[in-house]
């Protein structure tokens, strides 16, 4: 829509509580692809085993009316309990975990360790010529760490995508 093309595009973190039933992820992902919405990251895991509930965290982007439409469309799916837009609902914590493989020797290897220390990343695997670092933080922090590792022998990156939760005592 041309009218919406002019609106600023914003990134939103959506937290969706769903019944953990077969096909639920396909339903959510199919909705995004079928209606032409973006997914920047998606995480999913069961959060309540007894009640068979999973929480899906999706980072999506679009103009405000599109984000509203995404939430309404998600809310319409039968196995969806609720949809929360953490970006607009108030203070929240958002974190990503990444595993980053760096190979090198000599000064580069030492430098990667020093930077890992600054980022509070832990080496969770080591060989004579490589490390696997585990780093947790905001998307920006993980991005920054990966960027710094690039010249130091970055081999592989595996990251979880954003998980998020609201601050304070009340549940979502």
């Amino acid at each position, binding site marked *: *829509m*041309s*009218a919406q093309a002019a609106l600023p595009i914003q990134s939103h973190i959506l937290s969706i509580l769903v*019944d953990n039933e*077969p*096909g639920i992820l*396909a*339903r959510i992902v*199919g909705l995004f692809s*079928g209606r032409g919405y973006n997914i920047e990251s998606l995480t999913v895991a069961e959060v309540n085993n007894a009640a068979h509930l999973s929480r899906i965290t999706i980072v999506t982007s679009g103009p405000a*009316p599109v984000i*509203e*439409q995404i939430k*309404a*469309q998600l*809310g*319409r799916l*039968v*196995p*969806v*309990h609720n949809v929360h837009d953490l970006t607009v609902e108030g203070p929240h914590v958002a974190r990503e975990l990444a595993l980053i493989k760096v190979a090198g020797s000599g000064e580069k290897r030492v430098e990667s360790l020093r930077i890992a220390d600054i980022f509070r990343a832990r080496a969770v695997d080591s060989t004579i010529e490589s490390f696997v670092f585990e780093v947790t933080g905001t998307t920006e922090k993980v991005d920054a760490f990966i960027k710094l590792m690039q010249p130091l022998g970055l081999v592989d990156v595996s990251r979880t995508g954003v998980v998020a939760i609201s601050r304070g005592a009340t549940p979502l």
Partner: protein
Amino acid sequence: MATEQREKQTMSGAELVIKALVDQGVEVIFGYPGGAVLPIYDALFKQNAIRHILVRHEQGAVHAAEGYARSTGKPGVVLVTSGPGATNAVTGLTDALLDSIPVICLTGQVATHLIGSDAFQECDTTGITRPCTKHNYLVKNAEDLARVVHEAFYVATNGRPGPVVIDLPKDVQVQQGHYTGPQNVRHKTYRPRVEGEADKIRQAVELMAKAERPIFYTGGGIINAGPKASELLRELVKLTGFPVTNTLMGLGAVSGTDKHFLGMLGMHGTWEANHAMHDCDVMINIGARFDDRITGRLNAFSPGSTKIHVDIDPSSHNKTVRADLCIVGDACRVLEQMISAWKEGGFKPNTKAVKKWWAQIDQWRARDCLHFTQGKDIIKPQYAIQRLYEKTRNRDTFITTEVGQHQMWAAQYYKFEQPNRWMTSGGLGTMGYGLPAAIGVQLGHPGKLVVDIAGEASILMNIQELGTAAQFRLPVKVFVLNNEYMGMVRQWQQLLHGGRYSQSYSESLPDFVKLAEAFHCVGLRCTNPADLDGVIDEMIKIDRPVLVDVAVDKAENCFPMVPSGAAHNEMILPDQPASAPGASVSEEGMALV
């Protein structure tokens, strides 16, 4: 006690399904057997509560179920086999999704241990139907069967209605399981909002009372909310004296002959309805979704109006058109609330302004946009429908249609007095819808007159269902407006593509009279305007399925027309010069459907 004991007994999955259907009040199933549903067909064989209607193609089964659902208000039920049975049902399911029709579709599936092995007649039914159903289930355990069937009926009929698929692997159909009655099943999450928020209702009636140029714009939501919603809408129209227009899906919500009714709006809507929508200051949309056939070019849609939008589905709000007051709720309930808020608040319409508004509307009406001239030689399609209307208006008649010009003419020239009398494929625009839908309608209304207004191209898409009509002695009438063209395609090619009629001529047509006879139906033909009344009388009189082949003007176009990309008040009329606004299509419009 006896019931409890019976419920503790086990039975086969197939029997569980049938028992659950019976307890849901199902009287008729539309289906087609095959390997993966044989146990269910065996269970059907052993009972008498449910009647099975054998269709000739699974698409026909779903459309028949839709016709049944739309005319009775009860969900339609379909039973098809795995693989091709399921994929053939997909068009019907998508049609039911887009028009919000409650349908339960049971599909057979290969045994659970074979799923994923590319077994014979296997397909990923839940995967394929996920985007074209409201919800779907794959049942892997007979113990879940009764609950899933009851849940499926709840989901299909509550909130915004829609199709639900239940995929039933063959081993689950023969497994033993326990039965649970519908009273014991409550859906975990799905609780659509029915009641409108009181303060928003108050705001709505305040806006209505202040309105100078109001209009009610109502759609299929009124029909889906049940006949009471139509009664309430009529009451509210009477209370306020406001004009009302209906979408294609919403025809029959108010009487087609009521002076408050401006006719259908949209791409082939009336001059007065579209102008009133464009110039109104308060628009009250109840159960319609600002479809692109209604709005025309979005940035020119009713620019000066305050929009109230009542819809049971929150995702309909602000999807394409931003509304100023969005009310989530069931159309019937919200109308009730509006009427009581209006009465209790002692609200009165702004009579002086509304009178002035009506004077303007009467000027638009005087344009007489549906005027046509019937000559002596060739039957005008509009005339054929007008005569059909005049000949059937004094009895309770149900009309279905295929898709194309004939459908729009039917919507324009046939006037409906009651809801649930008009069954047409709106959202998906499915050619081949009308005949199977008519079969479903006839089953729900034995003894009533059911007419499928068809085109010669559309009718061929599900012509095989004449066999179903013959087998079950369903005296449906197929009224074919035969112009030897895919008329709407031809019209667009004439108006938008320089008259290059690429592939739109209906070449090598069958002899429809002989075709009807070959299917044990009656075939009639009419080529002369003077004979039309007689042929219609004969069609009505014959208590058997009849196909009438009416030869109509081949070059007739459907007007008014809002060309694609034009504003909704820029309509082409037949007597307009080509230079009139809207008569040419913008480059952007060329890319729109």
